[in-house]
Protein backbone atom coordinates (compact mmCIF):
# COMPACT_ATOMS: atom_id res chain seq x y z
CA UNK A 1 0.00 0.00 0.00
CA UNK A 2 1.24 3.46 -0.82
CA UNK A 3 0.17 6.76 0.61
CA UNK A 4 -2.91 8.52 -0.72
CA UNK A 5 -2.06 11.44 -2.98
CA UNK A 6 -3.98 14.15 -4.77
CA UNK A 7 -2.90 14.12 -8.40
CA UNK A 8 -3.55 16.70 -11.11
CA UNK A 9 -1.93 18.47 -14.02
CA UNK A 10 -1.48 22.22 -14.14
CA UNK A 11 0.16 24.13 -16.98
CA UNK A 12 1.58 20.91 -18.41
CA UNK A 13 3.20 19.84 -15.14
CA UNK A 14 2.12 16.82 -13.12
CA UNK A 15 1.55 17.36 -9.41
CA UNK A 16 1.15 14.74 -6.73
CA UNK A 17 0.23 16.25 -3.39
CA UNK A 18 0.71 14.32 -0.18
CA UNK A 19 1.29 14.83 3.52
CA UNK A 20 4.21 13.67 5.60
CA UNK A 21 4.42 13.45 9.37
CA UNK A 22 6.68 16.50 9.38
CA UNK A 23 4.19 18.59 7.38
CA UNK A 24 1.35 17.62 9.70
CA UNK A 25 3.46 18.45 12.73
CA UNK A 26 4.06 21.92 11.31
CA UNK A 27 0.35 22.31 10.59
CA UNK A 28 -0.43 21.25 14.13
CA UNK A 29 2.08 23.71 15.55
CA UNK A 30 0.34 26.47 13.60
CA UNK A 31 -2.86 25.59 15.48
CA UNK A 32 -4.80 24.68 12.35
CA UNK A 33 -5.27 20.98 13.17
CA UNK A 34 -6.35 21.78 16.72
CA UNK A 35 -8.86 24.30 15.39
CA UNK A 36 -10.28 21.74 12.97
CA UNK A 37 -10.42 19.12 15.74
CA UNK A 38 -12.37 21.60 17.89
CA UNK A 39 -14.93 21.97 15.14
CA UNK A 40 -13.79 25.42 14.08
CA UNK A 41 -13.70 26.25 10.40
CA UNK A 42 -11.13 28.98 9.73
CA UNK A 43 -11.78 30.81 6.46
CA UNK A 44 -8.51 29.88 4.83
CA UNK A 45 -8.55 26.33 6.14
CA UNK A 46 -8.87 24.55 2.80
CA UNK A 47 -6.30 26.78 1.13
CA UNK A 48 -3.81 26.33 3.97
CA UNK A 49 -4.20 22.55 3.93
CA UNK A 50 -3.86 22.53 0.15
CA UNK A 51 -0.73 24.68 0.17
CA UNK A 52 0.82 22.50 2.88
CA UNK A 53 0.26 19.37 0.80
CA UNK A 54 2.86 20.67 -1.71
CA UNK A 55 5.63 20.35 0.88
CA UNK A 56 6.08 16.58 0.53
CA UNK A 57 6.78 16.34 -3.22
CA UNK A 58 6.83 19.92 -4.58
CA UNK A 59 8.34 22.04 -1.86
CA UNK A 60 10.04 24.28 -4.42
CA UNK A 61 6.72 25.51 -5.84
CA UNK A 62 6.14 29.09 -4.71
CA UNK A 63 3.18 30.16 -2.58
CA UNK A 64 1.94 32.33 -5.46
CA UNK A 65 1.67 29.31 -7.75
CA UNK A 66 0.06 27.25 -5.01
CA UNK A 67 -2.61 29.94 -4.59
CA UNK A 68 -3.07 30.14 -8.35
CA UNK A 69 -3.58 26.41 -8.63
CA UNK A 70 -5.95 26.44 -5.68
CA UNK A 71 -8.11 29.05 -7.37
CA UNK A 72 -8.09 27.11 -10.63
CA UNK A 73 -9.11 23.76 -9.19
CA UNK A 74 -12.67 22.69 -9.82
CA UNK A 75 -14.73 22.58 -6.70
CA UNK A 76 -16.52 19.37 -7.50
CA UNK A 77 -14.91 15.97 -7.65
CA UNK A 78 -16.23 12.45 -7.72
CA UNK A 79 -14.22 11.75 -4.57
CA UNK A 80 -15.87 14.52 -2.58
CA UNK A 81 -14.98 18.14 -1.95
CA UNK A 82 -11.37 19.30 -1.88
CA UNK A 83 -11.54 19.79 1.89
CA UNK A 84 -12.92 16.30 2.44
CA UNK A 85 -10.09 14.78 0.40
CA UNK A 86 -7.43 16.75 2.25
CA UNK A 87 -8.88 15.81 5.64
CA UNK A 88 -9.01 12.18 4.55
CA UNK A 89 -5.32 12.33 3.64
CA UNK A 90 -4.51 13.88 7.04
CA UNK A 91 -6.52 11.22 8.82
CA UNK A 92 -4.69 8.50 6.93
CA UNK A 93 -1.35 9.74 8.25
CA UNK A 94 -2.66 9.68 11.82
CA UNK A 95 -4.12 6.21 11.40
CA UNK A 96 -1.01 4.73 9.80
CA UNK A 97 1.43 6.07 12.35
CA UNK A 98 -0.54 5.03 15.43
CA UNK A 99 0.93 1.84 16.89
CA UNK A 100 -1.42 -1.12 16.74
CA UNK A 101 -1.74 -4.06 19.09
CA UNK A 102 -2.24 -7.69 18.16
CA UNK A 103 -5.61 -8.36 19.78
CA UNK A 104 -8.36 -8.96 17.21
CA UNK A 105 -11.64 -7.13 17.67
CA UNK A 106 -14.84 -6.58 15.78
CA UNK A 107 -18.13 -4.72 16.01
CA UNK A 108 -21.41 -6.61 16.35
CA UNK A 109 -24.26 -4.44 15.15
CA UNK A 110 -27.76 -5.66 15.99
Amino acid at each position, binding site marked *: *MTQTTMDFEYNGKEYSLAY*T*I*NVLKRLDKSGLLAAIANGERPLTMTEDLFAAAFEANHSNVSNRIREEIFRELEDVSEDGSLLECLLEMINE*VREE*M*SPKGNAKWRMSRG
Partner: protein
Amino acid sequence: MEDESGLDSPSNVKLLTFAEMADELCPYYMSMGVPYNEYWHGDYTQLKFYTEAYRLQLEHENYSAWLQGAYVYEAVCAVSPILHAFAKSGTRPLPYLKEAYGMKADKTNAGATEAKTEKEIQEIQALNASAKFASFMTQWNKRFESEGGGASGTDD
Protein backbone atom coordinates in the same frame (compact mmCIF):
# COMPACT_ATOMS: atom_id res chain seq x y z
CA MET B 1 -19.20 3.67 47.88
CA GLU B 2 -16.50 4.37 45.33
CA ASP B 3 -16.94 3.12 41.80
CA GLU B 4 -14.17 0.63 40.92
CA SER B 5 -14.33 1.40 37.23
CA GLY B 6 -13.02 4.87 37.97
CA LEU B 7 -15.56 6.51 35.70
CA ASP B 8 -16.45 9.06 38.35
CA SER B 9 -12.87 10.00 39.18
CA PRO B 10 -10.97 12.60 37.16
CA SER B 11 -9.33 11.12 34.08
CA ASN B 12 -5.59 10.50 33.96
CA VAL B 13 -5.61 10.28 30.19
CA LYS B 14 -3.03 12.60 28.67
CA LEU B 15 -4.41 14.33 25.62
CA LEU B 16 -1.71 14.66 23.00
CA THR B 17 -1.65 17.02 20.08
CA PHE B 18 -0.49 15.62 16.75
CA ALA B 19 2.92 17.25 17.15
CA GLU B 20 3.40 15.72 20.60
CA MET B 21 2.28 12.32 19.38
CA ALA B 22 4.65 12.50 16.39
CA ASP B 23 7.54 13.46 18.69
CA GLU B 24 6.76 10.62 21.08
CA LEU B 25 6.48 8.06 18.31
CA CYS B 26 9.70 9.05 16.55
CA PRO B 27 12.04 7.15 18.95
CA TYR B 28 9.57 4.27 19.03
CA TYR B 29 9.82 3.82 15.27
CA MET B 30 13.55 4.55 15.23
CA SER B 31 14.00 1.63 17.64
CA MET B 32 12.39 -0.52 14.95
CA GLY B 33 14.92 0.62 12.39
CA VAL B 34 13.04 3.47 10.71
CA PRO B 35 15.59 6.16 9.75
CA TYR B 36 14.91 9.62 11.19
CA ASN B 37 14.41 11.28 7.80
CA GLU B 38 12.24 8.44 6.58
CA TYR B 39 9.96 8.90 9.58
CA TRP B 40 9.50 12.65 9.23
CA HIS B 41 9.66 13.08 5.46
CA GLY B 42 9.06 9.66 3.96
CA ASP B 43 6.12 7.47 3.08
CA TYR B 44 4.27 6.88 6.34
CA THR B 45 2.57 3.74 4.95
CA GLN B 46 5.92 1.93 5.28
CA LEU B 47 5.77 2.22 9.05
CA LYS B 48 3.55 -0.82 9.41
CA PHE B 49 6.02 -2.93 7.43
CA TYR B 50 8.82 -1.84 9.75
CA THR B 51 6.60 -2.79 12.68
CA GLU B 52 5.86 -6.22 11.20
CA ALA B 53 9.54 -6.78 10.34
CA TYR B 54 10.47 -5.86 13.91
CA ARG B 55 7.89 -8.31 15.28
CA LEU B 56 9.32 -11.09 13.08
CA GLN B 57 12.84 -10.23 14.18
CA LEU B 58 11.79 -10.49 17.83
CA GLU B 59 10.19 -13.86 17.07
CA HIS B 60 13.45 -15.11 15.52
CA GLU B 61 15.47 -13.86 18.46
CA ASN B 62 13.07 -15.52 20.86
CA TYR B 63 13.36 -18.79 18.96
CA SER B 64 17.17 -18.56 18.96
CA ALA B 65 17.15 -18.00 22.72
CA TRP B 66 14.84 -20.98 23.18
CA LEU B 67 17.07 -23.12 20.96
CA GLN B 68 20.15 -22.13 22.92
CA GLY B 69 18.34 -23.08 26.12
CA ALA B 70 17.48 -26.45 24.60
CA TYR B 71 21.13 -27.11 23.68
CA VAL B 72 22.30 -26.13 27.15
CA TYR B 73 19.69 -28.46 28.61
CA GLU B 74 20.93 -31.31 26.36
CA ALA B 75 24.52 -30.65 27.39
CA VAL B 76 23.67 -30.61 31.09
CA CYS B 77 21.67 -33.83 30.69
CA ALA B 78 24.59 -35.43 28.85
CA VAL B 79 27.08 -34.73 31.65
CA SER B 80 24.59 -35.37 34.45
CA PRO B 81 25.82 -38.95 35.11
CA ILE B 82 29.16 -37.62 36.33
CA LEU B 83 27.81 -34.51 37.97
CA HIS B 84 26.51 -36.03 41.20
CA ALA B 85 28.80 -36.63 44.13
CA PHE B 86 28.20 -40.35 44.40
CA ALA B 87 28.86 -41.25 40.79
CA LYS B 88 30.60 -44.60 40.46
CA SER B 89 34.18 -44.55 39.29
CA GLY B 90 34.46 -45.08 35.57
CA THR B 91 31.13 -43.36 34.86
CA ARG B 92 31.37 -41.47 31.64
CA PRO B 93 29.21 -38.64 30.36
CA LEU B 94 26.74 -39.38 27.60
CA PRO B 95 27.83 -38.16 24.17
CA TYR B 96 26.60 -34.77 23.11
CA LEU B 97 24.32 -34.49 20.05
CA LYS B 98 26.14 -35.42 16.84
CA GLU B 99 24.25 -32.82 14.81
CA ALA B 100 22.21 -29.71 15.38
CA TYR B 101 18.46 -30.04 15.82
CA GLY B 102 16.51 -30.50 12.62
CA MET B 103 19.55 -31.39 10.47
CA LYS B 104 18.91 -35.14 10.46
CA ALA B 105 15.24 -34.77 9.57
CA ASP B 106 16.10 -32.38 6.74
CA LYS B 107 18.69 -34.80 5.36
CA THR B 108 16.36 -37.81 5.39
CA ASN B 109 13.61 -35.80 3.74
CA ALA B 110 15.98 -34.55 1.08
CA GLY B 111 17.29 -38.09 0.50
CA ALA B 112 13.80 -39.48 0.11
CA THR B 113 12.81 -36.92 -2.47
CA GLU B 114 16.09 -37.31 -4.32
CA ALA B 115 15.90 -41.11 -4.46
CA LYS B 116 12.60 -41.64 -6.21
CA THR B 117 10.85 -39.68 -8.85
CA GLU B 118 7.21 -40.29 -9.65
CA LYS B 119 8.08 -42.39 -12.73
CA GLU B 120 10.43 -44.57 -10.70
CA ILE B 121 7.73 -45.10 -8.08
CA GLN B 122 5.27 -46.16 -10.79
CA GLU B 123 7.81 -48.61 -12.21
CA ILE B 124 8.43 -50.10 -8.76
CA GLN B 125 4.71 -50.45 -8.18
CA ALA B 126 4.31 -52.20 -11.57
CA LEU B 127 7.16 -54.60 -10.74
CA ASN B 128 5.62 -55.33 -7.35
CA ALA B 129 2.25 -56.04 -8.95
CA SER B 130 3.74 -58.40 -11.56
CA ALA B 131 5.77 -60.20 -8.90
CA LYS B 132 2.66 -60.65 -6.75
CA PHE B 133 0.75 -61.94 -9.76
CA ALA B 134 3.55 -64.38 -10.67
CA SER B 135 3.68 -65.73 -7.12
CA PHE B 136 -0.12 -66.08 -7.04
CA MET B 137 -0.04 -67.98 -10.37
CA THR B 138 2.71 -70.29 -9.12
CA GLN B 139 0.72 -71.13 -6.01
CA TRP B 140 -2.45 -71.62 -8.06
CA ASN B 141 -0.68 -73.96 -10.49
CA LYS B 142 0.84 -75.95 -7.64
CA ARG B 143 -2.60 -76.38 -6.07
CA PHE B 144 -4.09 -77.32 -9.42
CA GLU B 145 -1.32 -79.86 -10.04
CA SER B 146 -1.72 -81.46 -6.62
CA GLU B 147 -5.56 -81.46 -6.89
CA GLY B 148 -5.37 -82.72 -10.50
CA GLY B 149 -2.95 -85.49 -9.46
CA GLY B 150 -5.30 -86.61 -6.67
CA ALA B 151 -8.34 -86.49 -8.91
CA SER B 152 -6.69 -88.53 -11.64
CA GLY B 153 -5.69 -91.08 -9.01
CA THR B 154 -9.31 -91.52 -7.85
CA ASP B 155 -10.63 -91.62 -11.40
CA ASP B 156 -8.43 -94.53 -12.19
